[in-house]
């Protein structure tokens, strides 16, 4: 795992609560707001499971800690996007495009950035910077978990042995 220079993190009291809101003007037209909300709720839950941080949706985009939207080109952070490369997907059974990109996997990754993680070199980590079209990576890897827990501490309800057992079983299956 990698941190941003200076190791920035949210510094309010623990347990930390962060609000998130969706842009009303900058959503993607072929997914419904309900589909997008459901995906992000699941993605936030992955991180909330391992650290003492909760994420609460708010309607007020302006004051939300985390603002979610779909943007193209220059979007204000000095790193303009190239433009449309594929199609967002929430269900590969419905979305048959060969360039479909799983929205939940990307959401999990981007939330990792919001929490302070940079790009990992561990291929199975959620924070690895590439994702093949029509593939999913929605579960946190040990690398992601250790990285984010060293920033925020551990959720008292989280048991890392469950995650390790799950990864061992996946590796055996591979």
């Amino acid at each position: 795992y990698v941190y941003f220079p200076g190791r920035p993190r949210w510094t309010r009291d623990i347990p930390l609560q962060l609000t998130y809101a969706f842009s009303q003007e900058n959503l993607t037209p072929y997914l419904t707001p309900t589909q997008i909300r459901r995906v992000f709720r699941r993605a936030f839950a992955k991180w909330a499971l391992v650290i003492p941080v909760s994420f609460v949706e708010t309607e007020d985009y302006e004051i939300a800690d985390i603002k979610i939207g779909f943007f193209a080109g220059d979007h204000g952070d000095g790193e303009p996007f190239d433009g449309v490369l594929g199609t967002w997907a929430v269900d590969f059974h419905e979305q048959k495009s060969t360039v479909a990109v799983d929205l939940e996997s990307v959401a999990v990754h981007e939330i990792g950035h919001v929490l302070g993680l940079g790009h990992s070199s561990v291929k199975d980590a959620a924070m690895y910077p590439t994702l093949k079209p029509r593939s999913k990576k929605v579960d946190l890897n040990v690398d992601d978990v250790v990285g984010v827990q060293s920033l925020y501490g551990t959720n008292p309800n989280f048991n890392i042995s469950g995650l390790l057992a799950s990864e061992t079983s996946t590796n055996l299956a591979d």
Partner: protein
Amino acid sequence: RNPSQFTINPSRHNVNIPEIKRHLHRFGYLQRNNNNKNLGLPITGKPDSDTLSHVRLPRCGYPDDVDSKTTAFHTKQK
């Protein structure tokens, strides 16, 4: 980010490491003289298929190496 300018039908015989690095530098993806290992890829000294496959994959727009960002990263048109 779309690296298609040089990855469309690349030929093994006419794509070499310096050329790739010049291209990545020109478009702000890589600093000059950067020999760092990245993405967990093995260092082979040639544009191997693993590396080229990764270059073609859709990826997060945030730079990998945030420490080495230069002015060019922000001002060059991608």
